[in-house]
């Protein structure tokens, strides 16, 4: 019997409201400052004291595209979208075998998947670098796609299992008694319940692979570099660059910001691997 908005606290007084908004604005300030500075001229960006009311311009963004940020964004998009598609193709059947018709010892399998999340990626960097170099796949987007798939697969298996576990057993059994085939059960019973889960899982996988930096910076050079690599290489010590840096940082963060804002309610479940609904 929770309230409609899901709060359990009291209706806060004006003091609580002020404190809550104060804390929120304090936390949001760096992001707000980043966006604001990205629309300032370089001369106004690096002043002391700061000049928030300086005239606005979009020239920093224009310059980013002149500097050819586009291929980096395309590489990022390709790596995150394709790896996410691959993750789903592998994780959904696996989750089915773990939740709907559980194989024996399914919890052991779950924990094996989870344990790979505990392995520090850095420990795999050297062998992966050597193997990838050996097979001539350095500086190739497909290398990142395979690595990001491995990185997000455990997360996706856990999440999808938690969604599929919600399919009521009775309905499944009833469908089987009625002689529904596997295809029909998947389409009519499982899909409607699993669809929101699929969306949430995709979102989380896209966010994590879009933001991934360590493999990207160490395994790509020119052709396959992604947005975060562009960002780090973009920092030149030549004169003023703060506004352009803020524009680049805003631009590369924008897709994830929009996706995250749009799917806030799904975020929690994704971040907790399906443990918290």
């Amino acid at each position: 019997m929770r309230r409609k908005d899901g709060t359990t606290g009291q209706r806060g007084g004006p003091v609580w409201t002020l404190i809550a908004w104060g804390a929120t604005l304090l936390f949001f300030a760096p992001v707000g400052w980043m966006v604001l500075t990205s629309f300032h001229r370089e001369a106004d960006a690096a002043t002391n004291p700061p000049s928030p009311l300086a005239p606005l311009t979009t020239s920093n963004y224009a310059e980013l595209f002149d500097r050819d940020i586009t291929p980096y964004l395309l590489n990022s998009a390709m790596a995150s979208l394709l790896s996410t598609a691959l993750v789903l193709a592998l994780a959904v059947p696996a989750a089915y075998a773990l939740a709907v018709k559980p194989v024996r010892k399914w919890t052991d399998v779950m924990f094996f998947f989870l344990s790979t999340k505990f392995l520090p990626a850095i420990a795999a960097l050297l062998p992966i670098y050597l193997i990838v170099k050996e097979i001539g796949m350095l500086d190739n987007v497909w290398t990142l796609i395979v690595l990001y798939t491995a990185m997000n697969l455990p997360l996706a298996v856990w999440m999808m299992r938690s969604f599929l576990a919600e399919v009521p057993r009775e309905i499944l059994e009833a469908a089987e008694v009625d002689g529904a085939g596997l295809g029909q059960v998947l389409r009519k019973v499982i899909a409607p319940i699993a669809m929101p889960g699929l969306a949430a899982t995709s979102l989380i996988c896209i966010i994590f692979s879009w933001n991934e930096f360590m493999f990207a910076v160490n395994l790509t050079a020119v052709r396959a570099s992604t947005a975060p690599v562009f960002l780090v290489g973009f920092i030149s010590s030549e004169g003023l660059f703060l506004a352009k840096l803020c524009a680049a940082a805003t631009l590369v963060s924008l897709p994830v910001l929009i996706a995250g804002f749009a799917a806030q309610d799904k975020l929690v479940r994704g971040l907790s691997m399906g443990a918290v609904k």
Partner: protein
Amino acid sequence: MTTLTKAPPVRTVRPAPMPSTRVRWLRRAPLLPALIFTIVVTQIPFLVTLVISSLNWNILHPGDRSFAGLSNYQFVFTDARLRAAVINTVTMTASVVILSVLIGLGLAVLLDRRFPGRGLARTLLIAPFLVMPVASALLWKHALYNPAYGLFNGVLNALWQAFGADHGPTIDWVSDRPMMAVVAALVWQWTPFMMLILLAGLSTQPPDVLEAAKIDGARALQTFRFVTVPHLRQYLELSVLLGSIYVLQTFDAVFTITQGGPGTATTNLPYEIYLTTFRKYEYGQAAAAGVVVVIGTIIVATFALRVVSSLFSKESPR
């Protein structure tokens, strides 16, 4: 609905008239692609690391590869840089996780009330987590910390000038307090993550219990201490566990804000292994360090997995 997922009770597969091998393999089939892929991509590199860690191998001396026995491990356990990296990793992970859980809890409690613009506040609060980590590290380094024109010193300067001084203090945040600089940026990034999990936990409190506490004359603080915190225990454990996994592996912030410096002040294990690999080209040592980190993580994770197992327990969430 927000509840901790309860795994369906583990149904023992009834020893039906021995399902034929074919049926059992059909049942396993959907699982195999994911399992095989994961084993290949995560376990093979680890085996390769094990092999490399037993070699004397520096890329600057080609053709000089030889069997090293355990000498790389000896080096790992006696090297001052690595010891510093271990201490830094523990310091960094513990302070970031503890601070962001505490601040996240505070924010979650604030947001668990109804107030004007609550939805917007929640949206703004998760923004730091969604900004690309490399972007936020660069933002903190150049736009906030910079001693000459960063926002922090700029605001101080504006305040000082408002009170008639001619210039505020010029603090070089990153050089003077490097560890604090990295930790602050990471806490900012991870607090929303903790807040989201704890907010979900708060919203599953049974209202009748809160109501009963109120009727019994418990003050708000007592209710929080004796009703809310025990209820949140699982959620707190979960956020500490997940936070530790992620923060332990921090690479972007160290690489960007301090490059591990000054000296080894902020070099954590991931960054030190990266330096050993791509700056010193000591492959054997880097691999041995990697193995040690993995073993250390496994020890911590075993303990942590017990926490996750409680999510699988059949008892109702506390």
